[in-house]
């Protein structure tokens, strides 16, 4: 069934290309600015919409939650998520067990920082600079003085791998040095901008043009 669906999806893609070719595609580039159309009353106000997907910090669900738990988190408020907090502790402790000899417990610390799974933003906060050039997690590690959130080209995977498998938390003084860093996992060896075409722009809408 799974394979059949993938084949159908592939056929659909082939058909799409065959019908449209490339001649109907808009060239990649800046979007056109047009006058705002007249607002449309398109949604019945009595229709109830139920949440089916939820996301904030990148890769938190992917790393910490089993695949089956993703759907549970997607249908819940981040502050009422029934699975993710325990999953953060369980997964991190499986990777990096608490070490009583030095007093480390990465699982508990990460659960405290990452739950609820919501970006923390200080609208009046400072921009990142120097050794930490990214917005992602900057509010959390600065005690709320940095802007936080996430910019399009933040190397979020590098940051997260450093926290989970590397020496980021000991370097920040958030956890003691436990000598349990794993060099094979604390970096993915890809530059944050592996292709300049993926770089954000300085003008709205800031995200790079389609390719």
């Amino acid at each position, binding site marked *: 069934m799974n394979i059949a669906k993938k084949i159908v999806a592939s056929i659909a893609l082939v058909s799409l290309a065959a019908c449209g070719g*490339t001649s109907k*595609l808009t060239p990649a580039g800046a979007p056109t600015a047009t006058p*705002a159309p007249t607002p449309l009353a398109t949604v019945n106000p009595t*229709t109830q919409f139920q949440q089916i997907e939820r996301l904030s910090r990148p890769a938190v669900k992917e790393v910490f939650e089993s695949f089956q738990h993703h759907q549970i988190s997607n249908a819940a408020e981040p502050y009422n998520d029934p699975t993710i907090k325990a999953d953060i502790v369980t997964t991190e402790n499986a990777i990096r067990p608490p070490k009583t000899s030095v007093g480390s417990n990465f699982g508990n610390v990460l659960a405290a920082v990452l739950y609820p799974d919501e970006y923390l933003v200080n609208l009046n906060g400072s921009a990142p600079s120097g050794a930490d050039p990214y917005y992602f997690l900057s509010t959390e590690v600065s005690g709320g003085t940095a802007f936080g959130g996430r*910019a399009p080209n933040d190397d979020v995977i590098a940051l997260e791998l450093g926290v989970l498998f590397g020496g980021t938390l000991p370097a920040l003084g958030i956890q003691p040095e436990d000598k349990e860093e794993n060099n094979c996992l604390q970096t993915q060896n*890809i530059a944050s901008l592996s292709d300049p075409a993926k770089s954000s722009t300085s*003008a709205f809408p800031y995200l790079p043009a389609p*390719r």
Partner: protein
Amino acid sequence: MILKRMLGTVTAIVAVTTAVVLYTVHPVKSSDHQDTYDLATMANGHNTSADITDVYVFPAPDNPNNVVFAMNVSPLIPLGMGTSFQFDPTLVWQFKISHQTSGIEDQTIMMTAAGTGPSQVLSLYMPSTVQVGTVTNVTTAPIGTTTYNSSATLANGVQFFAGPRTDPFVFDLFAFFTFAGDRNYGTHTSQSDPGPAPGSPNAPALGSNGNSASNIAGLTPSYDKTPNSNGPSFNGFPAGTLSNSSGGNGGAFGAYKCSTHPATDILDYGKFNVLSYVVEVPKSLINAAGPKIHVWATVSSATGD
């Protein structure tokens, strides 16, 4: 003209071939691409714009008085086909905002789509009353609209864009799957399928039937595991690099050689696009209750699946 058509055909074939390979051989996700079985296979009846890949919140680069909220959906749109994909008109997308330490939402920015083709109209709402929780009604008029792949300036200086963009995310996904194969939807036959059982040949390191580090044996390696067959690794390390080369223990997985296979950003390899909602808002419309906010994004459907 004939040459242009030939080049166009070749481009389309390359794009489609890449997509076919990735859809059929290497199911892909990264930050949150193809998050569940239903979202990945469209088994829930929606198109891929129900699947959020990434969320961004950052100050506007060209105006320090504004903040930008961006949400990418519809992962893995092939090269050259960005404008062939539109937003699902049966869904509601939201940026949810909290000014409280509890993290409970007290402000929201909503988007809906009308129509199905490239003339699709996207509406933006900033309701004064917020529905807390996972059920949403759209009870107010939009503050304005834009057309697909266009930007518009709406009331109060709000800017709104909806359309295709390059996926800026960077990830060696296949290396991740070698030790976290449970996260690959292709290892499941449905959302309720737990995937490979612990100890089975395809059991991944990070989770099947729960998260267990004991399940790391048996996954087909794409790297040199000679010193330790249980050693998960990203790619691209100099020969001889050890998991514990800093003098430590290597964590729960112990000491072994790291992979020397080339690292690959799969989203760049495929030149993939996404659909993006980008909303630039004056901070004054957000920080009336204080400058410190919590932010997340949701997608909702009338059927709840």
